[in-house]
């Protein structure tokens, strides 16, 4: 088992799949010779060459259009959108075209493609380079949505996304790129649509995603050590398909649900989970559902402000102690 960074796991997954399948191609801005602005694609250009790892102009519509057109005609493209905020300039191709093509054509078209993007805050980049936009994708029928929290999940889930016959939006949390973790040796392919239970506890179930997962884990340790509260932590990993079986089971066990979401308040993925819980396991609950989110504001840049807005381990502990203890 090797220790890899989250960013190294990205390149490992792409390389693994490109070695296996000639139809896998990769395109985006600065991804080739430069190795990506987050250095998440280093080495791919050298190994696979400019025909399979193609640098593009700053043309997000052209990037995603090329991905769609090549996917429907037999390739398996991976497109990088440098920052997820930039999805707003090519959202037509995502929401109106890629997501709807199969359904609208009565199943005539396949769209085996992956859109990778650096998502989320914590890097002091300000409101146009820090948004957590996985909810934009989650609300469009026809898109699979994945957001890993660890290097092993990056590798396994990205490989699974590349092999998946449907379009997958793959949200890499940019503040996680430097984190390290053990990744199994050899070929690694995970399963989309599966949540993971990272910690077992009997008092409360914390459901978190991407960068909120390590914070939830830290909070759980603190709750145990300082407050005698034992938390289960569930890493959602995949918003679509959503592993409701695992999530609901773990909530039913403790009777309490806390979602930890990086997104601004309204229409966060946690609201959907809260709604499912209210519909299906309401009588298993022992108290109100708690949603911990970023406030409904554009994310500020300064470290003091950004740290105060995104959910932190301290805030998770505080809210759980105040509302559950």
């Amino acid at each position: 088992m090797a220790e890899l960074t989250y960013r190294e796991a990205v390149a490992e997954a792409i390389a693994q799949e490109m070695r296996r399948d000639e139809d896998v191609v990769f395109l985006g801005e600065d991804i080739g010779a430069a190795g990506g602005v987050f250095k998440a694609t280093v080495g791919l250009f050298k190994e696979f060459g400019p025909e399979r790892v193609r640098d593009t102009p700053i043309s997000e519509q052209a990037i995603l259009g090329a991905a769609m057109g090549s996917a429907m005609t037999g390739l398996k493209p991976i497109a990088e959108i440098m920052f997820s905020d930039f999805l707003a300039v090519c959202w037509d191709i995502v929401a109106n075209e890629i997501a709807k093509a199969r359904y609208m054509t009565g199943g005539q078209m396949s769209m085996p493609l992956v859109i990778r993007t650096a998502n989320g805050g914590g890097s002091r980049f300000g409101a146009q380079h820090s948004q957590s936009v996985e909810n934009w994708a989650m609300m469009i029928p026809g898109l699979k949505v994945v957001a890993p929290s660890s290097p092993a999940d990056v590798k396994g889930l990205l490989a699974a996304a590349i092999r998946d016959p449907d379009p997958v939006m793959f949200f890499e949390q940019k503040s996680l790129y430097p984190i390290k973790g053990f990744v199994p040796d050899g070929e690694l392919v995970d399963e989309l649509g599966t949540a993971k239970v990272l910690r077992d506890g009997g008092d409360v179930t914390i459901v978190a995603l991407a960068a909120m997962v390590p914070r939830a884990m830290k909070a759980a340790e603190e709750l145990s050590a300082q407050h005698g509260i034992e938390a289960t932590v569930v890493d959602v990993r995949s918003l679509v398909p959503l592993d409701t079986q695992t999530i609901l089971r773990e909530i039913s066990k403790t009777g309490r649900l806390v979602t930890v979401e990086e997104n601004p308040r309204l229409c966060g993925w946690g609201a959907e989970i809260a709604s499912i819980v209210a519909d299906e396991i309401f009588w298993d609950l022992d108290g109100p559902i708690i949603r911990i989110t970023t406030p409904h504001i554009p994310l500020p840049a300064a470290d003091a402000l950004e740290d105060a807005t995104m959910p932190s381990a301290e805030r998770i502990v505080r809210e759980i102690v105040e509302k559950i203890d």
Partner: protein
Amino acid sequence: MATKPKAAAKGKGRAKAAPKRAAKGKASLANDDIGEDTRLALWRSLLEIRHVEQRAYDLFLQNLIKGTSHLALGHEAVAAGFATAMQKDDWSFCTYRGHHHTLARGASMEGVLGELMGRQCGLLQGKGGSMHLTSVEHGAMGSYAIIGAHLPIAMGAAWTAQYKKTGQVSVCFFGDGTTNIGAFHEALNMAAVWKLPVVFVCENNLYMEYTPIKDVTAVHNPAGDRAASYGLPKIVIDGNDADEVYRTAQTAFAKARAGDGPSLIECLTYRHSGHSRADPGDYRPPGELEAWLKKDPVPRYRERLAEFGISKDVIDGMDAEVLAQVDEATEISKASSPPGLELIDVDVWADGGTAWRN
């Protein structure tokens, strides 16, 4: 009045002319490079589009076609000329004004009319509607209803052809209004930089929806005058002359297949009806429609065929035959049932289903 056929398309690398079969012994014009078989194929295509579109109009009036629809009456020669020059495995992409391009690739009339009528026999079983006609088996890779979107997509298909070295060409049809949206420029630039085998075809019918294109565009030829920005030659042709369209298409396809990159072609044409079902076209100055009707691609081609010695019997016989096919397709569509409600929960995903959770 008849238009004289031009000797040949300009430029190098013109594709091989179709077999020379201009009627021997008839009072035909000499030195024709298109040939009788191809001319009759063009004629059939023109007629199919004309009669299906007219039928679509009639079916609106009978309230058998719901929603909106954008007829291509007047644009027939663009679709017929390009599609006839395409190989079967080439890919075409078009806009919501796309009935003509879908038919021209070989999709069935009942597939088109049935889709417009929301019937089971429709190309998309009623799930797409007028603006999304698609027939992948015929290389008709979709009708796209958001202006500009399909230019990058067509470019992506061309990337597949280039990467896999298949020799296929991707052809993208769009209107004059599309030349003012960002996706047009992104696609043209990237296609030119990557030297992709894609042919961009602008059907300039003088109006972006209801507004004259000249009122909202900084250059005279909305596509042609932009070509230089992407290192491409300016090509502006008579889009109502099926022969000229056919020859231009051949030249562009040969260039694309030779690995010499994309083309941008502006076809001057005119729509005989309004923008959509809701639009009577009252904004058009008096006399403009009448002037263009004199250049109507269908009667024009009828004269062309006669000039090349094709008999009136053959010309009219094909017309009657196509009209009978449209009648039959209309009856098939009317008799076809509405799509079953089970289709609602089918085909979001590759596994055939719609599940977003377990």
